[in-house]
């Protein structure tokens, strides 16, 4: 589903954030991405979401070489990749429903048609009753679940999460991972960057470890 071939990402100011990274994530696979802060986890996820482009190497998602995608095809690609962030990135002046509906609006769906889809996504993360609440009135865990609902509402085949539980206590973190597990079970490919080594250990999924931009380990047991 996701294929990195000798991918390097260099920032002019900082040098290489990713160095010669190669791996393949199969369709429907769920994997964790770990490593110290600054190891390049966010950079790797941003490359997959085509928020940035690799300096060198080849990167393809669902068989599509991202280097071959022009400016006009980027939006389409992003609709097929759901992204979740540590800081949620919700719009504070829009209620939960409106926040979750953004990907559908981006895909050109008429506002009148998207209610069902948005509520289904909210139902999955257990927030149906909060659809009219503003994100700022929610707890951190609830906000993260809104972010997850937004990532899955358009039913992308790939979900990327960048330290989704970074701010959450262990119980809430487990809840979030439980959600991911359920998406995994319905066939979504997931790549989750996290520091939460304990949780990773209990889950027994594949783990990719980055160290200073290099992929240094690829297993569930490192």
């Amino acid at each position, binding site marked *: 589903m996701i294929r990195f071939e000798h991918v390097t990402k260099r920032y002019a100011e900082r040098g290489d954030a990713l160095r010669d990274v190669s791996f393949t994530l199969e369709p429907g696979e769920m994997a964790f991405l770990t490593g110290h802060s600054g190891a390049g986890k966010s950079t790797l996820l941003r490359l997959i979401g085509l928020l940035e482009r690799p300096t060198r190497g080849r990167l393809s998602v669902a068989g599509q070489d991202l280097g071959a995608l022009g400016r006009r095809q980027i939006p389409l690609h*992003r609709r097929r990749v759901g992204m979740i962030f540590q800081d949620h990135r919700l719009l504070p002046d829009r209620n939960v429903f409106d926040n979750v509906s953004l990907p559908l609006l981006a895909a050109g769906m008429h506002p009148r048609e998207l209610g069902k889809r948005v509520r289904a996504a909210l139902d999955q993360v257990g927030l149906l009753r909060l659809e009219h609440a503003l994100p700022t009135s929610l707890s951190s865990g609830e906000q993260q679940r809104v972010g997850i609902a937004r990532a899955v509402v358009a*039913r992308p085949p790939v979900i990327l999460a960048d330290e989704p539980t970074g701010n959450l206590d262990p119980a809430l973190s487990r809840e979030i991972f439980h959600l991911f597990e359920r998406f995994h*079970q319905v066939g979504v490919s997931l790549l989750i960057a996290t520091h939460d080594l304990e949780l990773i250990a209990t889950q027994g999924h594949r783990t990719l470890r980055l160290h200073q931009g290099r992929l240094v380990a690829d297993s569930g047991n490192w």
Partner: protein
Amino acid sequence: MAGRSNTRRPALRRQPSSPSGPKAGPKASQKSGRQPGHNPARGRPQSRVGTRREPPWLGRLPGRWLGNHLQAGADTLRRLLRAPLSTGLTVAAIAIALALPAALRVVLTNLEQISANWDQDAAMTLFLRPGVDEQRGAELATQLQARADLDTAILISRQQALAEFRAYSDFGAALDHLTDNPLPVSLLLYPAAPYLVPGQALGQESEQAANTAPPATRDLSSDQPPVHAPVDLERLASELEALPEADFVRVDALWLQRFAAILALLRNAALLLAAVLGLAVLLVVGNTIRLEIEHRRAEVEIMSLVGATPALIRRPFLYIGAWYGLLGGLGAWLLIAASVLLLHAPVERLTGLYDTRFDLHGLGLAESLILLAAATGLGIVGGWIAVGRHVRQLEPR
């Protein structure tokens, strides 16, 4: 790492595109049945919601497109009206910037209307020497009317002149004390058309006369040669002044010539003013929208993140520009309509003094529509300029 993927094979069975997987098929359908909201499968038959993913809406595309735009336009207007003060200030700035060139245009239209009336009778007045009596004046009138370059010559007697003077000036009472009529006999002369109309036509036609072939050749070449060469009003005036009975000739048309030159100048000034103030409108709208984008930066970024096209990201801001432009245009129109209304009575009084029938015109329908369209267009362009840079910043590097 290739070996890795082999050990990961089981995951493949849950892959949506292979529903034939021996175990995952029923399991997945069971799951998705319970969670209708999440089904990444494309074309998985049992998913009710999934079949809605590609509705046959291609046929209703124009309707949907229009609906989306109407929605965006209405949303944007509602947003603008939620901040009436800042919206009002921006709209007022645009309205004033647009009203100035539009007002100049109105002034020009009215002045042109006046000069058009004058053009019709490019008259000149020949004042006779004080000693010349009315009988001689009448003879002269008959004589002059025979000239090819004059159409009509009308005798104005001294009494007529005095009566007219009394009627159209404020000296009526003073004139009552005069025992003697100080006014001379005069002739009102109408040159035969075609004559050189002062201003643009004068320039063009004299150039033509100077640059093109001599009259004889022109007569041969054209089917209908002119009856006579266009009358040069200035030369005619000096010829008439040379008559022994003549005192002096007043060519109203000469004044008209200067007037036309002023009009031409004003027309150029109006264009320049329109260009400069159009630029001002662009700047006002552009800057307002730049601030708006700054304010909604998070929204723009997230829309881009979730796969909105640049067109969709631009859309609300272009609508803001359009609304600002349109509202500013309406404001300018109202300013002008109000001014015309206010000036109507004074102008009527003024033109009454000159015995001219003159209607003060505001903006016509076509001009009003052009004003509104140009204003809206400027708003959209201003929005486009402001939003373009930000949209480019969203592109991956």
